[in-house]
């Protein structure tokens, strides 16, 4: 039982760390604000949620302590991080940051 729990926790932790690393590489390598924001807000959100889930499972299955505030943290990040990304992107667009020169579509161009 404990060995299975440990394996599940290790898988969640490694997946979460990998996704956070992928988000960091995306922020470095992608060309403009919007694609970088896309990488950072999606991948890092799921990565942090997986790490928190592993933390919750560790304390629940190994230590026997049900930590509801970690669950609340998972829900909180799931709600707020995409909204944060949306607001940063919108602020960038409204202040006139250019899209990448190879972008093919800009639906908001005629709305201004």
């Amino acid at each position: 039982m404990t060995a299975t729990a440990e394996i599940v926790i290790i898988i969640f932790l490694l997946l979460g760390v990998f996704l956070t690393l992928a988000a960091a590489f995306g922020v470095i390598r992608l060309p403009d604000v919007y694609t970088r924001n896309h990488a950072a807000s999606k991948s890092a959100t799921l990565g942090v949620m997986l790490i928190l889930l592993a933390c919750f499972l560790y304390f629940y299955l190994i230590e026997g302590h049900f930590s509801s505030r970690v669950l609340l943290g998972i829900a909180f990040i799931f709600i707020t991080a995409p909204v944060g990304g949306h607001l940063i992107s919108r602020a960038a667009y409204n202040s006139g940051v250019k899209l990448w020169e190879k972008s093919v579509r800009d639906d908001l161009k005629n709305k201004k």
Partner: protein
Amino acid sequence: MKTNDVILQTTSKVVFFMIVLFAIHLFFAGHYNPGGGFVGGLMTSGAIVLLLLAFDIKTVVKGFPIDYIILVGIGLLFAVGTAAGSLLFNIPFFTHAFGDVTLPVLGKTSLHTAMLFDTGVYLVVIGVTMTIIQTIGESE
């Protein structure tokens, strides 16, 4: 260009209650766990600041018709009152009392007068933070 804040306002309305619940949890957990009046008060005012960001200052004042300077006064009164209450029983200033009380709904609960002092800290922290932010926000 007129901005459309539906996403921000809807999430703020949901998240506000989560933050306030967590603040109350921190406030009541302060005796046995990390937390207490200071963090709880800061987090409650953080929730109100989130509403200030999502809506304008007049809407929030209408929603919370509180004079925060009076809130500071009430908090200080709580703190001084619990500290001076020990003088009535002929024991030194700031001596706290505690004990188990049987309440009608909650059952046997251990209560401590340090909680009332913490309530004072909580109210003062909310009052001071909101006074600072609202006075900075209103002067244009």
